[in-house]
């Protein structure tokens, strides 16, 4: 009897999961396998190529542009992931103190940029920072002795500026996650703590921080994976400029696949990016979890 029930359960489970498994296999697993195959050929963007062994990977290893694209990507990750997490926590703690409709309005204001498409973000900041007509130049000019600066054509400023507006754009989502986490902390804990004479800082370091840690790990991991795949903003702002100097990994893949028509090489680069993301996110998640468990 139990056996039969179990078999029925298996059948039901299989029927319920089949659509997902089929679509997942067709649209994700199959292309992934093909991409791995492609990375060992000299195929163009469309059509088949000859098997060339590890040639593509050797070429990537020797390619200065690929090396600099990895460096640029990591630089961008450092500049965007940590600030967007820390700032989001601060804003969330601030918003959490507000009450009623004031809280809703402030929350909406911080969240608003997140719903914008990247093209709109690009245009907004393009005009704000424009060298000749941008309002930001009123802030920049006194700092440089009257000189206007084209931020996205000044190499040392490119990545910091791209990271800054990415933080501005995406911080709303992180903030929401933190607010959800903060609301899960019972107020009774804080009340008990203040009765025991704990100050603001002690409350934060002994209660809020440890209890919000799992959310922090989540936010950091989501941000890390997202920003390792950075493309849109950097592509848009570097268009027509020194694209090679600021190219990120996905941009390198895009260039090889769509501009240079090197499908095989682009697939190999994609595979490397995939491995980088897997390694970094597993590493980060493990390290952060271990740290969390210690507490």
């Amino acid at each position: 009897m139990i056996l039969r029930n179990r078999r029925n359960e298996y059948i039901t489970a299989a029927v319920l999961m089949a659509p997902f498994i089929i679509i997942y296999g067709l649209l994700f697993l199959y292309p992934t396998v093909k991409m791995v195959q492609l990375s060992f050929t000299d195929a163009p963007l469309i059509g088949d190529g000859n098997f060339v062994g590890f040639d593509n990977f050797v070429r990537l290893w020797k390619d200065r542009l690929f090396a600099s694209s990895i460096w640029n990507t990591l630089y961008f990750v450092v500049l965007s992931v940590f600030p967007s997490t820390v700032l989001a926590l601060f804003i969330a703690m601030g918003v959490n103190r507000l009450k009623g409709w004031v809280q809703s309005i402030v929350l909406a204001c911080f969240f608003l940029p997140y719903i914008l498409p990247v093209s709109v973000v690009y245009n907004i900041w393009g005009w704000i920072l424009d060298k000749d007509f941008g309002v930001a130049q009123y802030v920049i000019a006194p700092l440089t002795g009257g000189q206007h600066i084209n931020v996205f054509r000044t190499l040392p400023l490119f990545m910091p500026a791209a990271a800054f507006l990415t933080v501005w754009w995406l911080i709303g989502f992180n903030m929401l996650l933190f607010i959800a986490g903060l609301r899960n902390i019972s107020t009774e804990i804080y009340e008990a703590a203040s009765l025991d004479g704990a100050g603001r800082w002690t409350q934060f370091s002994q209660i809020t921080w440890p209890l919000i840690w799992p959310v922090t790990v989540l936010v950091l991991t989501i941000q890390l994976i997202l920003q390792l795949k950075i493309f849109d903003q950097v592509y848009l702002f570097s268009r027509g400029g020194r694209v090679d100097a600021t190219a990120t990994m996905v941009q390198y893949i895009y260039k090889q696949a769509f501009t240079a028509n090197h499908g095989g090489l682009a697939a190999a680069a994609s595979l490397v990016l995939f491995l980088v993301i897997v390694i970094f996110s597993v590493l980060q998640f493990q390290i952060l979890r271990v740290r969390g468990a210690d507490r």
Partner: protein
Amino acid sequence: MIKGMLKLALAATALLTISAVTVAQAKDTIVWWDFLGGGDGVRMKSLIDEFNKEHADTVEIQATTLDWGTPFYTKVQTSAAVGQGPDIMTYHESRIPLGISTGSLSEITPAELAASGIKSSDFEPANWKQAQGADGKQYAVPLDIHSIILYYNKTLLKNAGLLGDDGKPKGLDGVANWDAALAKLTANGVVGLSVPTADGATMWRIFYTLLNQQDGVFLSKDGKFLDGDNLDKATTAMTEMNKWVKSGWTPANTEYPASIALFTSGKAAFHINGVWEVPTMVDLQKKGSLFDWGAIQIPTLYAHPATWADSHSFAIPNRQGNPVDPAKRKLVLDTVHWFNEHSLAWAGGGHLPAFAPVRSSDDFKNLKPNADYASLAATAVFDPVSTLAGVASPVYDAAGNYIMPAMNGDLAPADAASQMRDDLQGQVK
């Protein structure tokens, strides 16, 4: 009686249905893809409407506009590979070598051209040849020649004594004269020249113009970039461009829209940009918010006149396993010929019609400002014939990577030239 009426009604309905079906069958459709946005898009749409109206009973063009540049060409390539896509598409001539190498383009035979009345003698030889493969086969028919031109503010030039009696600038030829003119015009908060100095594509167009005015060869026949003394000529061109910025005659790192705004607000006496910005000026003047302006061919700074040019052309995609059938091809080429015959309307976008009979017509000669710079067609130089060249290509990328920083003073011109050569040479398979 009622039965009879019913029969009649049925018969009439049947007859109507049949005739409707036959009409629908008789009317051919042409699936059309282009990448024309902005004013060009509006102009092309009205031309297509005119075509559809004129051929209301026989042909209908079903047009789709896609994103310009890499997205367009990627879509063409992928759709052709799986036997999908349009019957006709717009194509940059500079992009044809890459189109041939990826198998996206279908050859148009001399017999087909002749059958639709398309003659090579109706086009500038360089313009016609640019639509051919290395084997001399024709892959496209040009619609226009578009280039960069020199826009000028008549009031500012007049005050500086640089305007001739014919309303055109005078004494700009030769590096010394040109530099002197820029220096003279740079005064009282006005700069001599605005160009989109933050835009690699514009850098390429100016650089290629100056290189060819010195007889420089960007890519030699045996596949070498900036070979021999061409490297020095490239350095000379970039040094000159850098001088405009260094001397304060041209603002550095200016974005594309801002460079136009500098000119249209009277803060720059000259502006170098594509002919496609002519409608911007025309529209502003119509609204009464622009000064008296004009546009001429880029002055000859070196040995002889030459101007970078590209061409919007029409091509038939090479749809794998599902080719455009011969009858449709004939129809498509007839349509191409119709558009060339009607390309005066297209010239409203600043372009020069590729079709010589239109360009030599009185109507065109009265079309200002196009007629003032139409002379550039005879000495136009098209992009190098290479899979690495053309719009949105590695060469355009290289312009952003090397020529742009050289002009803006972030990279020494000689270094920029040799680095650009090595980079592009390294990309040759």
